[in-house]
């Protein structure tokens, strides 16, 4: 399955000139011997893999966090992280997938189950006894920063409830909220809707499901393929109709754009139409700004806000548009992190055997935040799991840049994470 093909991943191993730049920048192999590094596990080991061998030649590839720093620094264009993801899928296919990984891969299902009784679910998940059991029975690290279900209802419920108050306009934009916004952080979606409407766009939220990334990173390719196909069925038409599809979760948008088509070898016209229609929300706002259409009626925000562009965001290869747009906000000081990765890498840092690796990887980022001084009260980062990890590692609250932007428009309270009365959305 998917081990070799002429589509870009397989043959990209031919690009490797063994120069070791990737290994020098890999945040995981920098802190542990358990992962032999991207060159070793990627293009090097790939030459020794085929399906149906007497034994799995290397299990260590499972310690790749999939952060894609290797892809970013590789001077010759080897798709190292994707080679590793496929190797993991091959192992999963031959050896089976542990229950824990199946569960972590089903972020959406977990979200949906919990959101019916969020307080109970939060208690159930977050009390010491169940975390202890989750660690012992399933291998989910006790200390890992698992999310809390929204006690305020899901984003979907809010969006439906407030339909009458929503802006209806000729210009429309499609919003892909992702599972975290849906069940854990509906306020991110509210901020996004507020920002988009403030700029005169009507927001469409079509039926959608999990992007499939958690499954891809846990080697469940077949299941991920079904998820992606459903999203394609639901949104390809909108993409074809010229509606931009924006997302606030950097890893979801990356999956829709590239990871799912590439890893799963899905290249139908519909898949490609969706791929080409998806934007990270700031990537799209930057386009708007370049066309002179972004409203810049910002209120000053007098804040020192250390910003970390997550590895999954950098993997879009569009630069750091959130940073560029936030830089327009008066008085906002944004020290930029050059840390390679926060360490959580999706579901990686949740796993008992990888929790400490994740924290060691994140230390570079935590240290950067600490070095910014005591007057720092909050950080910013685009990806949900990274924010949770950042909060876990620094004890400071962390915000999505869209929250910051909504606040700058006067539509959102950064402290309470609620829309203000000025927004026409309550």
């Amino acid at each position, binding site marked *: 399955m998917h081990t070799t093909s002429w589509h870009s991943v397989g043959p990209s191993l*031919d690009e490797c000139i063994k120069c070791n730049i990737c290994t020098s920048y890999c945040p995981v192999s920098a802190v542990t011997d358990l992962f032999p590094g991207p060159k*070793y596990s990627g293009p090097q080991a790939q030459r020794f*893999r085929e399906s149906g061998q007497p034994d799995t030649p290397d299990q260590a590839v499972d310690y790749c966090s999939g952060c894609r720093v290797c892809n970013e620094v590789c001077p010759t264009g080897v798709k190292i992280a994707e080679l590793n993801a496929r190797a993991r899928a091959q192992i999963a296919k031959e050896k089976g997938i542990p229950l824990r990984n199946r569960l972590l891969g089903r972020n959406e299902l977990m979200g949906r189950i919990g959101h019916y009784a969020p307080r109970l679910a939060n208690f159930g998940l977050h009390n010491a006894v169940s975390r202890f059991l989750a660690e012992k029975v399933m291998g989910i690290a006790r200390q890992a920063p698992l999310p809390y279900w929204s006690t305020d209802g899901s984003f979907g419920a809010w969006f439906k409830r407030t339909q009458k108050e929503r802006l209806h306009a000729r210009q429309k934009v499609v919003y892909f909220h992702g599972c975290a916004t849906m069940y854990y952080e509906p306020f991110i979606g509210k901020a996004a809707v507020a920002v988009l409407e403030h700029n005169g766009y009507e927001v469409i939220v079509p039926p959608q499901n999990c992007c499939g990334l958690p499954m891809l990173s846990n080697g469940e390719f077949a299941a991920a393929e079904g998820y992606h196909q459903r999203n394609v069925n639901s949104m390809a038409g909108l993409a074809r109709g010229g509606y931009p599809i924006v997302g606030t979760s950097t890893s979801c948008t990356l999956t829709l754009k590239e990871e799912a088509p590439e890893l799963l070898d899905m290249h139908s016209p519909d898949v490609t139409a969706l791929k080409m229609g998806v934007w990270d929300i700031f990537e799209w706002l930057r386009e708007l700004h370049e066309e002179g259409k972004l409203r810049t009626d910002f209120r000053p925000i007098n804040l020192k806000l250390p910003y970390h562009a997550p590895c999954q965001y950098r993997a879009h290869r569009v630069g750091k548009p959130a940073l560029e747009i936030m830089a327009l906000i008066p008085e906002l000081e944004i020290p930029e992190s050059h840390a390679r990765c926060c360490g959580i890498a999706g579901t990686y840092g949740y796993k008992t055997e990888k929790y400490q690796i994740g924290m060691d990887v994140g230390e570079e980022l935590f240290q950067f935040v600490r070095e910014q001084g005591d007057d720092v009260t909050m950080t910013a980062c685009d990806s949900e799991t990274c924010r949770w990890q950042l909060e876990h590692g620094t004890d400071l609250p962390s915000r999505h840049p869209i929250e910051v932007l909504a606040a700058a428009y006067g539509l959102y309270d950064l402290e309470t994470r609620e829309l203000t009365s000025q927004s026409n959305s309550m």
Partner: protein
Amino acid sequence: MKRINTEILVIGGGATGTGIAWDAALRGFAVALVERRDLTHGTTGRYHGLLHSGGRYVVKDPQSAVECIQENRTLRHTHAHCIEETGGLFVVTPEDEGDFPDLFVQGCAETGVPCNEISVAAALRREPLLNPRISRVFEVPDGSADSFLATHATAQAARQAGARILTYHAVTGLLVTGGDGDKRVVGARVMDAVSGEEIHIHAAMVINATGAWAGRITGMVGIPISVIPGKGTMVAMNHRLVNTVINRCKMPADGDIIVPVHTVAVIGTTDERVADPENLRIEPWEVQLMLDEGEKLVPGISRARVVRAWAGVRPLYQEDYTGDSRDATRKFALLDHQRGHGVAGLITITGGKWTTFRLMAEKTVDLAVDYLGERQPCRTASTQVPGAEQGHYWLGHRLHEIEEEHLQGELICECELVTRTMIENAAKRNPTVTLDDIRRDVRLGMGPCQGGFCTYRAVGILHELARQAEGAGPTEEETKEGTERDAAWEVAYLQSPRHNLSADERPARDEAGLQPNLLLRDFLQERWKGVTPILWGRQLKQERLDELIYLNLMNADHLPQTGEKSPLTDFYLYDATPNEQTEAPA
């Protein structure tokens, strides 16, 4: 001048020669084998690595097919660890018309080559890169083989049975008694290529197993024989694009096979008559032809990275034959020079193919027995060589062993997963004159970077070994004892990281004389020679990085030197760069 007495002297350290030494030693003969370079330096080490099922010969040469399938089964037992059970497919591409597929099926049935037609869909599931436009697919028990390891293992088995294997010993003349009519070869004059010492080896029977070079030996006693050197050019792709041997289902021709062997896929071969088996050029049209033909089996293959090209010479014997070399017989030729030319004490074995080397050896020793008298029966068909108990080779075994034993930090050749201890032990267990010898032992420098990183490292390691051996090198006495100890050397495990967790305690032998700067230059040049024919695109970029390492970083072209040469320096310097003058034959 040294003198050695033996019963049988074998000339040539390829598959056939070592096979003969093994067979004869097992039958109870005293045997010495001389090879002018390293084992497998000639044709054996330069073939595509196919373990024939016989399928390629069922129509054209049924007797060869019968021999192949028989030996295929035998070698899977005797040399298990040298063979990968890849299986093979014969595919009918849109260009292969006519009734050949039906003849093929019929031929398989008649020769006993197992053949199973499978659906195109099943073939594509197994090999996703295969041309989807193929119309029929037949499955046969082809395999791939490591001819370096197999020859080392055979030589090891021969040593254990008492044979003496002398590499870097070149025959400079034959020892002859009698005159016209009752001429008898009684041994050979041999030159130790490293020390320059001359040795006379006296033997009751001299067996000439020098393949394409056979005429040079017989010429020493005035016997002209016609061995056609048929040059076969092969290209190795940077990774295995297929995991099954893929053959075109048609009459054997140029570029009609892809063999997955170790980490690469080899497209083979051309077939060109050449005058000189020694200095082979690889012409641009040959490389182009391999890629063009490869495209018909695996569309897109010419865009993939080619890591190396090389050529070997098939020894094709046919009396008074002057036609195309591919049409010359692949059957082997066993020449009894007493009956044929009135020169006693000399047998020549040539022709054939790697898959049938054991059978050739058996028949040769049978002939020698006619003159020397019966001892014990041939036992090579049922005796496993050392290392065979490891079971069949599988692609991931090194990766697996490296991980299990936590050896990632010990890797010297990172492309082919060679550890420091593997190199040290190879140097101690097999005579080492150049790094190319180590390459054949452990696959040093055979991956994508073609020695870019590991040449320097291996030189550093060998130099350290040599320094340790200085003053503590083995005495003459110890060397003699060493010959007996040879039998216990675990040469057969050279390629296994797990079997080389600790360095051998025996002192380094020949390394005391190694000159690091010469080792470095020789190996860089040896690698260069094999990449220039395919140097473009990504491999050219790789080579430029290798240049950066050896020019800017090492300043290797300005290392102190005294003009010293190894026995192979000139061989490596032969100009193999692409040459525009030669056109493809019409």
